[in-house]
């Protein structure tokens, strides 16, 4: 799970500001009787790059899915960009259009071309004129280095290309926060680095990111904080250097030895 990241990372714009982007306080969530997230407290400042890791079933995906309310939490509060997530549909739509999300299985719309995938939300949610939306889309497709695929359908692209389209699609909404839910887990090893590269570029521009991943190379080089979760709780939280060289909890040590050991 360690894809070597060879490039030098430009840290000039990677600055963490004092402004709070996401504030999660005493959040609890249950699936029926099963307590998936226990008393989560997390503050994310603008410009932070947070990697969330942990064994499967530890609740890390559920946590970030709560942030744009793909999952509903039952207790505590989540405030994104000053707006509290409640059952008020207006707030939810507002937050969702501010927060971009990339999924493990890309979830591109297979019946639309790459370009249409990218322009759909700006046109229908933000009422951007079609021409302008297409220009923006091409800009971001160039950024993820696949402008030549614009007229193809998702089914004709490789996994790595699809994930980069998914990133471009989110960026077209000009989000202030990006959530990544295991963006490289469904990819062949040689495609992982092209997606990680795209994510690094995004980080270099100062995007606030929360990334659920097992890619420890990415965590070490890009993240400014690593969060380790187990059994629905945040077990350890530290700077990457400290986290990898000097993990405090036994559970973290075990996890790291398993994931880095081979």
């Amino acid at each position, binding site marked *: 799970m360690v894809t070597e990241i060879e490039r030098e990372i430009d840290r000039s714009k990677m600055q963490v500001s004092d402004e709070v982007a996401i504030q999660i306080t005493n959040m609890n969530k249950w699936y029926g009787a099963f307590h998936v997230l226990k008393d989560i407290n997390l503050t994310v400042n603008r410009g932070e790059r947070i990697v969330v890791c942990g064994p499967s079933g530890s609740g890390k995906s559920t946590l970030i899915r709560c942030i744009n309310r793909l999952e509903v939490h039952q207790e505590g509060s989540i405030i994104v960009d000053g707006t509290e997530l409640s059952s008020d549909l207006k707030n939810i739509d507002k937050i969702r259009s501010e927060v971009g999300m990339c999924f493990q299985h890309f979830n591109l719309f297979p019946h639309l071309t790459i370009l249409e995938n990218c322009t759909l939300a700006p046109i229908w*949610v933000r009422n951007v004129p079609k021409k302008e939306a297409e220009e923006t889309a091409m800009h971001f497709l160039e950024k993820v280095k696949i402008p030549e695929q614009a007229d193809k359908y998702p089914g004709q692209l490789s996994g790595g290309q699809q994930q980069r389209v998914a990133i471009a699609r*989110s960026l077209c909404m000009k989000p202030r926060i990006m959530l990544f839910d295991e963006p490289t887990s469904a990819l062949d090893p040689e495609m992982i680095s092209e997606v990680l590269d795209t994510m690094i570029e995004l980080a270099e521009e100062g995007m606030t990111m929360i990334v659920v991943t097992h890619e420890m190379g990415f965590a070490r080089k890009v993240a400014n904080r690593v969060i380790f979760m187990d059994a629905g709780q945040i077990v350890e939280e530290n700077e990457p250097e400290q986290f990898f060289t000097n993990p405090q909890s036994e559970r973290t040590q075990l996890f790291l030895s398993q994931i880095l050991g081979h």
Partner: protein
Amino acid sequence: MSDQSYVRTEMLGEKPPPSSQVGVVKWVMENLFSSIPNAIMTIVSVWVVYYILSGILPWAFQSSWNATSLHGCRAYIAETYGEGVEGACWAVINERWQQLLFGFYPKELYWRPVVTLVLMFVAISPVLFTSVPRKIMLFSVIYPFLAFWLLWGGSIWLPIVAFLGLVIAFLAIVYLPAIVGSLFATIGAGLLPILFWIVIAGPIIDGLNGIAPIGIEGVDSDQMGGFMISIIIGVSGIALSLPIGILLALGRQSPLFIVKTICVGFIEFIRGVPLITLLFVASVLLNYFLPPGTNFDLILRVIIMVTFFAAAYMAEVIRGGLAALPKGQYEAADALGLDYWKATRLIIMPQALKISIPNIVSNFIGLFKDTTLVSIIGLLDPMGLARAIPADQNWNGIVWEIYVFIALLFWIFTFSMSRYSMYLERKLATGH
């Protein structure tokens, strides 16, 4: 070891394949005689086809086209092809084809259903083919009202005022959300036109008729019949059942308990009873429920029942398509900030409908053929006429010829539908 190494110094050119691998010989060898059992099957099949055709073809071609009765036919066939030859009496079709197509519609007004049919193809063209200019869509919206007026005739104000109801619904959808919110706007768009039709439309039509009595000769429902009635009921049922089916399928998945219960109840009830009972309800019972004095056209009543019936099945077909969509599609749409209706319209439905195309079209075909059941409640559709025509003394004893003709008419329509569905599937394939 060195004597085992091999390096190619010269690349080989291409040679033509052996004669057993090209053209007719190859096709026959591969498809008809690829093994001994296949060869036997081929010979047996050829014999069966020959046997059937040798029975049918002489019957179909040693026939009579000009006669005024079955006796005339038989006499002509005996004279031309010899005693004891069994031949078809196509003369009955020759004499009665207009009736089989139009029922008892006044002869001098045949042009009206014909124009309606031609305009129908214009109206559905933008729905069927994306290359047709989108502006024709506007005509598709007006068409049902125009078709009604052309077929039934009467005052022009009735279809125009009825169309106004649709305009009201459209205005409500566009302008009300800003005033009362989207939920009440949707309810308003449903209720306002109904109120308009029930309460205001009648006096307006009467008033307009008083001022400017413009219209064409009216034709009653009981004068209509033949294949025309199959098309009227079939096409209306198809056009109405798809949108209603979509709404029912969505309603069935709705988290809103009452909406869900109503949809499930409707679907399960309608699917649970035979179409023929619904048709009897339309022909007999519905009049008891309607206010006394209302003369609600029988064909319209049948269309409503056929639509309900087809919509319930359609809902289940579409639900299958919805269930086949990965959950990720809903999540991606949500994550981009699309609201429920936009996500449904732009992401979910296009994919769910595409998955369901083969099933939707076979439902349409089934519905179209089921329209023949209306003969049981006394409408003279082709099947009804197929029983009525032999009752004529001249044609007493005729059976096959009429049914062959009816089968051919239905087959042309259903076969086009099935070919269109294959075309659509190919066109929408996006390589996944």
